[in-house]
């Protein structure tokens, strides 16, 4: 879409679903948008999911048109591998310093053919795939990631560690690999800033009683999302560590809730979604969900829960005390509300972790000089009234950066920041 250049320019930090929505709306109004994303790809957490609840729509298909629109929009400058280092000034006149790390791949020349991966001799865990598969030192995190161009991981790349390796460059037909690229320091002048840095999940090793990373076949829900993903490490096949499909699965809700002190809003629904997905893929699988309070708020979620329950998924209100290995399976000891203790034996255990602010939030809060609350989320201007403003005029927050929430609420907040920004310039 052509811009009429209304003079407004905005920095959006974080290119997940909130950042994408805010950027598109702002750009379509004629504003210039700098979209800074610290990863080499954009789409945030949503592109990790196979399907979203409750309509079980394909997540990547859902967001792909928006991503395409964003890449083609002349008003939006997508800055991947970029982080905000300093912010000065005030609303209408911020000066922002952004550090853009070198990709070592020329985005103009690279056509995304992936030929450079094969010759690379280095193999490390793929973080996007939650460590369930490997990637090379020059890589694209997953098939379909955008922009469709790899990045060189200088921590693991032999050349950047001092060796004389140029196998990727030799394999490239388009002269797209450029080892001489440098990190850049960009100085941007913007009128407003939107913080949409999303979330990460609670570190499940902090609740060792559930056996994460200790026992076999205990997964976090994010790992299971990648296992279920058709573009993931198992191409959508749901398998245990021994390669077989599970016959019985348990999903434990609220892991980390006690430690964090709040309800993460979406985990019950995400867990129910997993159960639904599992039953569809493996019709004879037995799924049990262990939860304390079922959180299915709003007009559309309860129906989904009821359908899943009807399909034979067991919902057990319980507190789990311990998970132990039983042969190749797992034994989950739990107590129901009437005090009765039981044990559930399953092949696979999925843990639904709490949602936390994304890594680097504290540093960013400092840079932006906006407060964080006691949980590390960015503080909204007025709790219960203004969720998207902050104490610093011209800086807005949206999505899980502010508090855990689902996609519709995240998108609404992103749109709300646009409403406030565009009404500022009256």
């Amino acid at each position, binding site marked *: 879409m052509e811009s009429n250049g209304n003079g407004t320019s905005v920095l959006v930090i974080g290119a997940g679903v909130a950042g994408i929505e805010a950027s598109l709306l702002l750009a379509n109004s004629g504003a210039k948008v700098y979209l800074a994303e610290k990863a080499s790809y954009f789409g945030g957490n949503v592109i990790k999911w196979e399907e979203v609840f409750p309509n079980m729509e394909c997540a990547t298909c859902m967001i792909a048109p928006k991503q395409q629109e964003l890449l083609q929009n002349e008003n939006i400058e997508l800055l991947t591998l970029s982080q905000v280092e300093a912010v000065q000034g005030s609303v209408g006149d911020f000066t922002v310093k952004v550090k853009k790390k070198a990709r070592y791949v020329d985005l103009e020349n690279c*056509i995304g053919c992936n030929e450079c991966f094969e010759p690379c001799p280095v193999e490390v865990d793929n973080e996007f795939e939650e460590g369930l598969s490997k990637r090379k030192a020059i890589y694209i995190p997953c098939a379909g990631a955008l922009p469709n161009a790899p990045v060189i991981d200088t921590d693991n790349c032999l050349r950047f560690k001092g060796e004389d390796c140029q196998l990727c460059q030799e394999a490239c037909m388009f002269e797209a690999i450029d080892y001489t690229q440098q990190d850049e320091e960009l100085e941007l002048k913007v009128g407003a800033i939107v913080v949409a840095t999303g979330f990460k999940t609670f570190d499940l090793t902090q609740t060792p009683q559930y056996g994460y990373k200790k026992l076999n076949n205990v997964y976090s829900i994010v790992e299971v999302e990648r296992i279920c993903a058709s573009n993931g490490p198992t191409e959508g096949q749901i398998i245990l560590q021994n390669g077989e499909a599970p016959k019985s699965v348990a999903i434990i809700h609220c892991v980390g809730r006690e430690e964090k002190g709040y*309800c993460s809003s979406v985990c019950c629904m995400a867990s129910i979604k997993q159960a639904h997905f599992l039953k569809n893929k493996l019709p004879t699988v037995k799924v049990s969900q262990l939860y304390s309070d079922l959180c299915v708020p*709003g007009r559309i979620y309860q*129906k989904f829960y009821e359908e899943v329950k009807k399909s034979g998924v067991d919902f057990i209100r319980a507190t789990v005390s311990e998970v132990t290995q039983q042969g190749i399976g797992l034994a989950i000891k739990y107590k129901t509300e*009437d005090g009765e203790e039981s044990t559930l034996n399953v092949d696979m255990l999925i843990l639904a972790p709490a949602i936390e602010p994304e890594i680097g939030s504290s540093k960013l809060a400092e840079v932006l000089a906006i407060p964080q609350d006691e949980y590390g989320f960015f503080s909204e201007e007025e709790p219960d*009234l203004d969720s998207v403003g902050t104490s610093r005029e011209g800086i807005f927050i949206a999505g899980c950066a502010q508090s855990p929430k689902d996609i519709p*609420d995240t998108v*609404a907040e992103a749109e709300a920041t646009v409403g406030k920004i565009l*009404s500022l310039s009256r």
Partner: protein
Amino acid sequence: MAKKIGVYVCECGNNIADNVDIDRVIEAISPLRDVAVVEKYRLLCSEDGKEYLKQSIKDHELTHLVVAACSPKQHEHTFMSVCEAANFNPYLFQMANIREQCAWVTQDKEEATDKAIRQIAAAIARVAYHEALEKRDIDVSPDVLIIGGGIAGIKAAQVLAAPDRKVYLVEKGSSLGGKVKGFDKLFTKMESGSVLIKNELKELQEDENIEVFTDSEVEQILGFFGNFEIKVVRKAANEELDFNVGAVVLATGFDLMDPKGLTQYGHGKLDDVYTSLEFEEMNFSTRKVLLKNGKPPESVAIIHCVGRENKGYCSKVCCMYSLKFARMLKVQLPKVKVSQLYSDLCIPGKAYQKFYEETKGLGVEFVRAEKTNVTQNGKSMTLKYESETGTKGDLAVDMVILVPAMEPSSDTNKFAEMLGIPMDDEGFPAQEHQKLAPVASSVEGVFVVGCAQGPKNISESIVQSEAAAGKILSSLVPGRKLELEVKTSEISETFCTGCKTCISVCPYSAISFDDFRKISVVNEALCHGCGVCAAACPSGAASVKNFAFTQIYQEVEALLK
């Protein structure tokens, strides 16, 4: 005029060139009808490539263009810009995908070459039948109509109004403020709702770009996004006002489900069984919580999820405001016993669990219960319940507060119908997209916010109002025309028989019937170009620009030669 089709085959470095014999491709397509020039190029999407293409189009005075390269989803947009730069109509252009869907998926080079030739031949045959299409735009009004003067409507008005954008706020009641103005306390800061409204209204009244209509109703809404024609009636004066707006925001709020039908709770029969709104009202008007006999209650039960089973959804905010009630009671009557009967505690988000724990710390009892019923027992009441495991229990209470489900208000239903917004299974107006477009309704330019859209708390309602404002401010820019979809459907007046089949299938209600000419007419401002009408039309009158039967047929024929 003789056609001159230019065909450019991109090698895509080695990506295509390695797997497709480009020279054989050129040989095969050069003799095809109307092909004036066939060239190959190493990388057409590069700056050099684009410059070369632009120059070549001009030099050869081409009438049509085919680019055989990667997927159109990658670079159709790029090459259309090149066309524009060459003063060449970008719609007389077609791409052939010989990379993703040919070179990259075919092992045998001969087969890949054959396939490439076929797909390019299809593009050539098709493009000869393309029409030159022009971008069109229409004038729009940047003004906005907001229906409903509660907190959502008020906030939307504040964010939207500007010297170049008028906002009309229509409220059927005599004053603005909706339900919130009657709330003495709001969770979690326990501050006054009426003071909040007072402050918001002050800001509103000072804004001369907001025209407020109270005691007024919206009688009629005609038109479409960018051009709605509104009729408002001021009831008392019986005065009618007509004006145009570009967008409509529906903020007509909620009603509580009437619990009288759920006789187990005794509402309407027993003296001291109140709904939450009744309790709010009592507290607000008298600042005192008293029973019907004039005495303060000694023990209060708050029953959550009343009517939830009937409705089939969770009303999201009730657990929190039940906690709020507990606090209000404890502040006013420190010795009162408060019991909360609930099934699942719904306190999502970072702030609410703390509120719950503090409330619990005040000595409020939480009982997980179902099958609750309330009966009179002498001067007070007995509340009987069962736990999930079947254990029975009872409580002696002198006041019961029922927390009923939240429904869309009757006005919400009325306006949804007037605007042609279908309702979802729960009775709320359907959203454009459940996840990615929560405040936009399925009717373009009409937004539904606040509790009219679904049960939610005040901050969420405000966010939705601001979100609708964001969408409106982004698309309806004062002085800027609205660009329309180019490849829209068109209905031939000659062939249309007036059967209205197209109207019945259009997902966007973009087709209307012209009663005078007895034909269907496409509103290009609403048409998205999906082609469902073209496929449905029995007489072939409906056709999508550049996706006409004749054009697609050319592809079929060329592919099967």
